[in-house]
């Protein structure tokens, strides 16, 4: 792991891995969309609207995973001063924010025909909305503070404090009475879904995961280049 602390070595690795990561992502999406839109049956109660689950649930999974990734990278940056960790955390934020927005928006599109409302302030929806605000806050800190070192430290602390929201999101449906249904895949005792629905969901989950990994690598590379560009511009300004 430590050998990839060298940004040049990491960039070479990304150049090597990225085309394959894109290939895997496209293949998984092609299979996942075929299973979701063509093969998966209608639900006996929800009818065709059950298909929203195949884009809503993976988006929610990745929204949580991206935050966990951001928080772990922030912890590594604070504890070990790994030179890429703060950039990895920063790179994950806009991606995580997009997936969180998608989880909220597609959930709303699913809620209207099934619950009769676009939105309710129940524990699951509210805690997901808080996650979205945490992402926006984290991004705002990086934009608001000029000194990257100071911005990284403050953003890392915010990311770590915000971690408390992750178990709240996960267990909100168990701890409180919510309109949102309880967990049906990631639960003790195994999934409650029929394989005909579970398989497309897991393939779409894998596709979203592959997309997240690919985009995260691309974003980290961009952050490395942005940092190098800033250093070169500062050096040039010192010369003048």
């Amino acid at each position, binding site marked *: 792991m430590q050998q990839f602390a060298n940004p040049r070595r990491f960039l070479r690795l990304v150049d090597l891995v990225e085309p394959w990561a894109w290939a895997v992502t496209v293949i998984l999406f092609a299979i996942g969309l075929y299973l979701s839109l063509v093969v998966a049956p*209608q639900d006996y109660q929800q009818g065709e609207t059950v298909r929203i689950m195949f884009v809503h649930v993976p988006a929610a999974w990745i929204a949580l995973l991206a935050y966990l990734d951001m928080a772990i990278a922030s912890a590594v940056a604070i504890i070990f001063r790994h030179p890429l960790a703060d950039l990895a955390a920063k790179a994950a934020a806009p991606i995580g924010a997009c997936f969180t927005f*998608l989880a909220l*928006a*597609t959930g709303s599109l699913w809620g209207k*025909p099934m619950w009769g409302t676009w939105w309710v302030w129940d524990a699951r929806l509210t805690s997901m909305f808080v996650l979205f605000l945490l992402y926006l806050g984290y991004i705002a800190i990086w934009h608001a503070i000029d000194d990257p070192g100071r911005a990284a430290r403050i953003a890392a602390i915010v990311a770590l404090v915000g971690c408390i929201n992750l178990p709240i999101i996960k267990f909100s449906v168990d701890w409180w009475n919510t309109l949102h249904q309880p967990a049906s895949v990631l639960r003790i005792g195994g999934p409650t879904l029929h394989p005909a629905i579970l398989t497309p969901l897991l393939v779409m989950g894998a596709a979203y995961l592959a997309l997240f990994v690919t985009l995260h690598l691309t974003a980290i590379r961009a952050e490395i280049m942005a940092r190098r560009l800033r*250093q*070169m511009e500062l*050096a*040039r300004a010192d010369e003048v």
Partner: protein
Amino acid sequence: MDLAAPHLGFVFAAYGLSLLVLLGLVLWLRHRSRTLSRALQQLEAHGAPRRRAVAEAP
């Protein structure tokens, strides 16, 4: 998929929005990478020194 089923507009809206947001994210990241890479190449072509090199200079 039953194209006569009720609420199908919500299904298409969910898939369309997902496609739009994810495609936008991909395009934004690729554009940012390309812009930064071009700016770096221009600076390197003009012989801009690295900050460390400046710091190490006597």
